[in-house]
């Protein structure tokens, strides 16, 4: 039954359900959503313009800061794009280290999501437990790469730090404990009725819609479609590591939870296999600073889905055009379609279902907002020097 008149409920840009500033204007009729109008760009930082102002070497640290949770995915994608422009091949040991760090990042990114999803439906205890165990992976990454979030492991032509034996032992230890925890959470999620009631049959995305709306990553795989860049278009050392792609035909938020928990277990196996078969040898090859004119597309399976970078070079030390399309932008169309016709109370969990990373989606705009909270001159940010 409809009350005839609909009220507009704004969600964001500051809202406890949204971890980052985004604005969704919902038209609500009674308790069900009638229409959604997304308005993104609150953390837009003009990154694509900034890429064109810095040399390839400096852009590596710009690419790393597109997103806090999947920084390694962005640097791997960026490094591969530039290596392809140069036509240089990186040593096999660097490929394996890239795979290991990428899978460790998938572990902590997915466990972050499981905690956030639990928090969105009010299950704060699971949120605390999952994030407590996630700390073990973050500390491990800090010990290996020197920083919890921006690991800066990648450089153009290979990897900056090596994994000595002591680091390898530490990784194996953390993985064993983390595997036990992930199995525990999957069991709790499967059995806890209040969680199941809030996620099963919620935010349904049928396979046909998922494909036509070009959804990517766990959102697509939870609708039963087996598509993963690591398998379809293998990069780094993924062609030498056997792993299977987790899919679930639940098509709902519960299916996405199951897919992400399965992927965490899969990542642990990938890391163990990579550690066993890690070749020796050099860490990186030296590359020239100027890049011949060329264009390429580089794709990586970030924790949220297929991440795509397009790079075009013009023979100088600065890229001609650098385009970043993050998985959240691809999933935005899918989530807007699933949000129509749901209960108002389900909006946060459906929004969280695609594991949105809005800072990825917005990239970087450096626009002086008159009267905005902050404004720096171009010189202060070093823009002047980069000209």
């Amino acid at each position, binding site marked *: 039954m409809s009350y005839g008149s609909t009220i507009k409920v704004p969600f964001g840009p500051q809202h406890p*359900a949204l971890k980052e500033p985004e604005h969704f204007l919902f038209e609500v009729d009674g*308790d069900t959503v009638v229409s959604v109008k997304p308005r993104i760009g609150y953390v837009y930082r003009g990154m694509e313009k900034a890429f064109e102002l810095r040399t390839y070497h400096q852009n590596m640290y710009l690419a790393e800061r597109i997103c806090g949770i999947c920084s390694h995915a962005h640097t791997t994608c960026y490094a591969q794009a530039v290596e392809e422009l140069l036509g240089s091949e990186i040593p096999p040991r660097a490929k394996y280290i890239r795979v290991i760090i990428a899978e460790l990042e998938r572990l902590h990114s997915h466990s972050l999501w499981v905690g956030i999803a639990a928090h969105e439906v009010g299950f704060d205890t699971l949120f*605390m437990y999952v994030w407590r165990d996630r700390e073990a992976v973050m500390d491990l990454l800090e010990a290996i790469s020197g920083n919890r979030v921006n690991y800066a492991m990648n450089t153009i032509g290979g990897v900056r730090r090596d994994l000595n034996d002591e680091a390898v032992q530490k990784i194996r230890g953390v993985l064993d404990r983390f595997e036990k925890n992930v199995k525990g959470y999957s069991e709790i999620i499967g059995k806890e009725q209040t969680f199941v009631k809030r996620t099963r049959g919620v935010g349904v995305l049928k396979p046909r819609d998922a494909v036509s709306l070009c959804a990517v990553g766990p959102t697509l795989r939870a609708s039963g479609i087996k598509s993963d860049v690591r398998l379809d278009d293998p990069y780094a050392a993924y062609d030498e590591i056997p792993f299977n792609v987790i899919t679930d035909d639940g098509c709902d938020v519960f299916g996405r939870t199951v897919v992400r928990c399965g992927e965490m277990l899969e990542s642990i196996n990938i890391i163990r296999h990579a550690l066993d078969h890690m070749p020796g040898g050099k860490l990186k090859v030296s590359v020239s600073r100027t890049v011949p004119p060329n264009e390429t597309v580089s794709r990586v399976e970030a924790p949220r889905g297929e991440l795509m970078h397009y790079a075009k070079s013009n023979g100088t030390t600065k890229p001609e055009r650098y385009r970043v399309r993050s998985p959240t932008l691809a999933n935005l169309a899918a989530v807007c379609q699933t949000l129509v016709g749901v209960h108002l109370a389900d909006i946060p969990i459906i929004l969280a279902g695609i594991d949105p990373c809005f800072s990825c989606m917005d990239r970087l705009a450096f626009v002086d907002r008159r009267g905005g909270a902050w404004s720096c001159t171009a010189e202060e940010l070093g823009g002047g020097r980069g000209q």
Partner: protein
Amino acid sequence: MIAYDIFQMLVFPGILFLFCLAFLYEWIDRKLFARVQSRYGPLYTGPSGILQPLADFIKLLAKEDIVPAACDRHLFMWVPIIYAVLPLTALFIIPVAAQTGLVAFEGDLIFLVFLFALTTIVVFLAGWSSMNRFSIIGGVRSALQMLGFEIPLGLAIIGMAIAAQSLSISEIVRWQSGNWWGIWLQPIGFAVIMICILAELEYVPFDIPEAETEIVAGWQTEFGGRRLALFRLGKDLETVLVSALVAALYLGGPQQLGFLPPVAGFLIKSVAVLALLSFARALFARFRIDQMVSGMWTYLLPLAILQIVLIQFGIGR
């Protein structure tokens, strides 16, 4: 005698004691809830954080008091005060220090059920008067939630009244000192009242009216400063009220345990109830409002009716 009555009314089992009890219970609840989540909980204010609720209260009093332009001014001013006063009045009829409450009359149980209903209406008015989308939705949800848990709550309370043949809580407490406790006589009633209390206090499985991730802070969104302090005080007093009620009805109320005064017996029992409540609220995710109301009517109400039927057959006597 008047001085002693005033002392009783104002200090010992009266207002001052209940305020300290309210802050103590909030501390116990937050500490236990934190320990279940492998956190420390309040830590730095006073010995292991025991003064944290008081510190929050004083901080809120010092905060700026914002009144939204579009709100209904009178209602906006009165609702927090009523919300804090209601549990206080209800606590006067529940036996805390001695076998009989400060005010005991035949039928104070019905008065108590009426106060519970009044609390929810005040919550609805709070949401309605602050003219903010989120609080209106929060207010409507709290009214809906009342439809869900009010009847099972009433049945669970009446169950004990039938067993003790009287409608006065003090009478029920005195009856229990002679016979079995309510929890052994009517375990189903105890389960029903515990679930309804989780809904009454808006604890996690049923914190739908102020769902933090959906509608910001629900009916409390527009309140700040002194008003929010009163709301939090009211909520703490309500925690004391419900744990005192369950202790009185189902656990025999304040009894003389060895050389300890009756207050100690009351404190141990209500803290046990509080511990059970705050442990329970750590185990669940939040329901949706339609799931909650339909769940109450399909599961909890038949249970409550079953309990009443059992009493008729003499099992719960």
